[in-house]
């Protein structure tokens, strides 16, 4: 026998590893709405299977915990069982020797804190709060509830224009979303259980690119009601669009020169070409929206006047003010904000960064937009300074990858300390303090803490702060609208205290995504219609093709490719390449059609109107 041998994986281990990978995908694709206790119990049993069996609390305790949870599920538990579960779990958390035990029991403790209502319901009424709604994951997870399997099947049948029509039933911005949506619809795609989620945004991009100009449907009989929309971004325009279709007459007040909000003043054109945005806005306006640009509410017209003049108001002013980091020297020259810079670019005022060293502070999508734009504006060197790890960045990973490919330097674990200025008061460098990854914060990311390394000086000709945005709420606050922590307070119905006034989008949620803003506009439109005393229904006449049974053999997801970095970084043209017909055929054929198969078809698979 040899003294040491090279470790090789046994056949069984290889297979188990494959099973783990499959389970990981399955967990990632876990449908929402499951019984949280059932899921906790299943996870607990998995954890127990991982126990080596050495220590009493883990070996026996996890088993007993599992039996107690089973009693809860089976309706055999009493409220005393809850105490016993807590006691047992706490015992394991405190006394187990390793993470296999204490981490598993912590899971149960967290569950008990989080799903207390579910536990009570099971024990007291022998029933579960879990529901059979939410059975089509992509539709459920789209904030606007867009009929994803529906338009994928239309794409598969070569009907891109119908796909656009179907999307517009729930979202008047199919093109914008095809280019820049963060696609929450893909996160729990059931196809992940087989291989990978469907490239839903990629397919939508194919559809809008193929469809060309698709005329809007006719509006309903005019109601004579007038609705003011404050803010011409995705949320405001969405509300205006649906209200027009319902027969109301809308006026959009926009502070800037052009409509589009953050789609124009936040997102650079290499991600979303301007002509596409302009065409989409033109299409929305074709429903008869009245537009007033360059109007600042509070100076040129007051809320009081608007309230008097209109039957309802929708406030969707977005989040366009920059936030200060509070750094010494932040007021120096050659220090600007992401909002300011991107706003200029939105109005085609392209600054020239040729030969400059640009330092950008931040790790979100906006920071990525800024660094990639700075590269395109000719900067000699662009450095992104972020105080956490790359994995903790809130920017989409593909945005970070894109930036890196275009030559952006990423300096992670560096907290800005102060800005050094020359005698003219212009910034010449950013000083940063190296950080350590510390304890996890509430959001589940490790907080940065100062390391023992000395501060570092990063020379800079221009420093751009991309650390978040706020809203310009002062006037609205003065007119009696409640603003908390910088956000306008509105309920799930978008209505605020004053029943005539509705609000939604970034100004309510804080900086978020386009699709959430669009969804808020849709919700506001429905509830304004209701408030005005109507119940107009939004539907489509698109008839969906019969379902086809697609292959469930494991197959690769088709990702969109990008233009070569060295080429694309020289212009503001679209970076991403669309799918070909063949690619779209293949990708759409991967859809499992949860609207037809599984529980989805029990309720007909879709909401055909709202």
């Amino acid at each position, binding site marked *: 026998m040899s003294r040491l041998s090279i470790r090789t994986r046994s056949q069984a281990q290889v297979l188990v590893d494959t099973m783990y990978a499959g389970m990981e995908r399955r967990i990632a694709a876990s449908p929402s709405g499951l019984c949280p206790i059932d899921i906790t119990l299943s996870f607990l049993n998995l954890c*127990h*299977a*991982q*126990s*080596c*069996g*050495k*220590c*009493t*609390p883990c*070996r*026996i*305790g*996890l*088993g*007993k915990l599992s*039996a*107690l949870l089973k009693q809860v599920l089976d309706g055999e538990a009493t409220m005393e069982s809850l105490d*016993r579960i807590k*006691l*047992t779990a706490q*015992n394991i958390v*405190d*006394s*187990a*020797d390793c993470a296999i035990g204490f981490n598993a029991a912590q899971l149960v403790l967290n569950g008990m804190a989080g799903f207390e209502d579910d536990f009570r319901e099971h024990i007291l009424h022998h029933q579960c709060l879990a529901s059979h709604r939410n059975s089509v994951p992509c539709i459920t997870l789209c904030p606007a509830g867009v009929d994803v399997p529906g338009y994928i099947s239309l794409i598969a049948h070569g009907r891109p224009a119908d796909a656009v029509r179907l999307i517009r039933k729930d979202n008047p911005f199919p093109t914008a979303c095809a280019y820049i949506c963060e696609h929450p619809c893909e996160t729990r795609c059931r196809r992940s259980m087989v291989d990978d989620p469907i490239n839903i945004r990629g397919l939508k991009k194919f559809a809008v690119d193929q469809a060309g100009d698709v005329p809007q449907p006719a509006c309903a009989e005019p109601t004579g009601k007038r609705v003011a929309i404050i803010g011409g971004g995705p949320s405001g325009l969405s509300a205006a669009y649906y209200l027009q279709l319902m027969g109301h007459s809308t006026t959009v007040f926009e502070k800037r020169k052009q409509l589009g909000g953050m789609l124009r003043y936040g997102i650079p054109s290499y991600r979303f070409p301007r002509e596409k945005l302009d065409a989409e806005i033109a299409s929305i306006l074709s429903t008869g929206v009245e537009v007033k640009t360059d109007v600042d509410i509070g100076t040129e017209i007051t809320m009081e006047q608007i309230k008097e003049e209109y039957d309802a108001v929708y406030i969707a002013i977005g989040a366009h003010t920059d936030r200060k980091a509070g750094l010494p020297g932040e007021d120096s020259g050659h220090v600007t904000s992401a909002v300011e810079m991107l706003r200029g670019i939105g109005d085609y005022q392209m600054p020239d960064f040729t030969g400059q060293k640009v330092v950008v502070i931040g790790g979100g999508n906006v920071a990525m937009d800024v660094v990639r734009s700075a590269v395109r504006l000719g900067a000699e060197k662009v450095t992104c300074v972020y105080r956490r790890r790359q994995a903790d960045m809130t920017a989409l990973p593909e945005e970070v990858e894109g930036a890196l490919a275009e030559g952006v330097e990423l300096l992670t674990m560096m907290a800005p300390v102060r800005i050094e200025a020359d005698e003219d008061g212009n910034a010449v460098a950013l000083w940063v303090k190296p950080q350590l990854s510390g304890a996890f914060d509430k959001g589940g990311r490790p907080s940065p803490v100062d390391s023992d390394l000395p501060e570092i000086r990063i020379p800079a000709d221009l420093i751009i702060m991309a650390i978040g945005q706020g809203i310009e709420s002062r006037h609205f606050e003065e007119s009696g609208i409640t603003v908390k922590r910088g956000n306008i307070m509105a309920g799930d119905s978008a209505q605020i205290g004053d029943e005539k006034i509705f609000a939604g989008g970034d100004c309510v949620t804080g900086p978020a995504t386009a699709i959430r803003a669009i969804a808020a506009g849709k919700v506001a439109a429905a509830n304004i219609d209701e408030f005005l005393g109507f119940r107009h229904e939004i539907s489509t006449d698109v008839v969906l093709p019969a379902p086809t049974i697609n292959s469930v053999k494991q197959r690769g997801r088709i990702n969109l490719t990008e233009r070569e970095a060295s080429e694309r970084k020289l212009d503001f043209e679209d970076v991403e390449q669309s799918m070909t017909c063949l690619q779209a055929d293949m990708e759409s054929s991967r859809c499992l059609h949860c609207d037809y198969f599984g529980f989805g078809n029990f309720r007909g698979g879709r909401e055909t109107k709202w």
Partner: protein
Amino acid sequence: MAKGVMIIDGQRVNFDGEKNVLAVIRKAGIEMPTFCYHSDLSTYGACRMCIVEDERGKIDASCSLEPRDGMVIKTNSARLLKHRRTILELMLASHDCNCTTCEKSGNCRLQELAHQFGVRHVRFQDTREPAQLDTSSPAVVRNPNKCILCGDCVRICEELQGVNIIDFVGRGSQARVAPAFGRMLSETKCVSCGQCAAVCPTGAITVKNEIGEAWRAIHDPNLRVVVEIAPAVRVAVGEAFGIPAGENVLDRLVTALKLMGVDEVYDTNFGADITTITEASEFLERLQNGGPFPMFTSCCPAWVKYLENENPKYLKNISTCKSPMEHFAAVLRDKYAAKDAEDGKRTYLIAIMPCTAKKMEAARDEFKTDGRPDVDLVLTTREVIDMIKENGIQLQELELESPDLPFGMASGAAAIYGVTGGVAEAVLRHCVPDKSKNALREIAALGIRGDEARKETVVHIGDAELKIAVVHGLINARKLLKEMDEGKTFFHLVEVMTCHGGCVGGAGQPYGLNSVKLVRGEGLHKIDNASMFKRAERNPVVTQLLAEMDEEKAHHLLHVSYVKE
């Protein structure tokens, strides 16, 4: 080793070299509860009973914590007490709790701690399917339903005995302790030392109980029940009756056995004197013939079994002498054959032993006459204690009675057979020509007494310089054999005892810690000191008996060969 001061429950405690916080806590006078911790064994940290809480509320097992200067811990906070009770409940919820009929009842650590911690109700259900008992071993019974997986048996078998018969199998909730490949103990190389049973905190491994057999024999009018009592028994039996360990209670035990209905009570020490003389003669013979060396002592049946199982090439080195128990039995059978024929009774020999392996030895074919074992039944010290208690006999109150003659007389050298180094010392007393008191003292001072794992010495007999070694614990025997294999060591005589401390530490003795074993050993040395004669050859009955025996009979009665042809 670390030195410093800890604060335990608000009390300053100095530590100096203690290997873990648990030891420091115990030093502070707080009896930390444990199942899986034994100072002789490696730290396992599985039972989680010895948990302590630090200033920040972090809970850790004290057995697995290294003492640090300035450490502040609590041993009995509300949380800790609650957790200990819960851990006990969890154990009880996966334990066969039929305590009243359990072999271990009264000596069970789980029972004791559950009671101590006020666990009067188990809130968890035991949903396990009952597992099969393993009764295949002549020495021990395994009941997996009572196992709490503390791993003490696994570690003692591996770390002190080096035989690795049982181990953990299965994982997680399926984990259990068992021999490899699902074998029964009888299918393994188990040497029947019983140390697993001695260390088991519950009734999961117990010594085979043969009390019923004993009562049947005692109450059978057709049987003449004769008892022989091993040296180590007399210094341990008293422990169950409030008599300090190490105190010789042989005479009281004789009275008790007579009260119980035993016909004749003799002393295995008589057999030991025969062994000494026979073994010493063999040793001198080997010296004359040039080997084979070393000569290994043969009294310990687990050791003999070990060589048979693991290293048969050394079987020829084992002394051909039978063990004292079997010497006694062979002589008794020889002497009583006529008596049995005369009064129509059959002599039924019960040996009271500190040892579980003796149960295995008694059943060996080598020790049978006409197909019947010379020793009909081996009872452990504990079994005899139980029988005495069953009859309500208060041992501590009894009058003294000497063992019967002629086989009740023995030398001091026989008494020390029960403690490590004793057999070698007895043989040397016989071999060394100088019979003076000072010569005895010299032998005693050679360094073969004491608790060290291996003791070595050199003795001069005539021109010969003899190298002697004494080991206890099979792991130490294994190490010695390995060195011999590698040619690193050479000895003329090696005494091997399987159990730590020798027979006083046998698995049939009352449950006790190492310190108790040492006290028992000292008790045997006291018996030797107080004895009328110190050398085997001074036993008049033995010398006469051996003198009357012709060579063939001597060979037949006194010798055995374990070498397989």
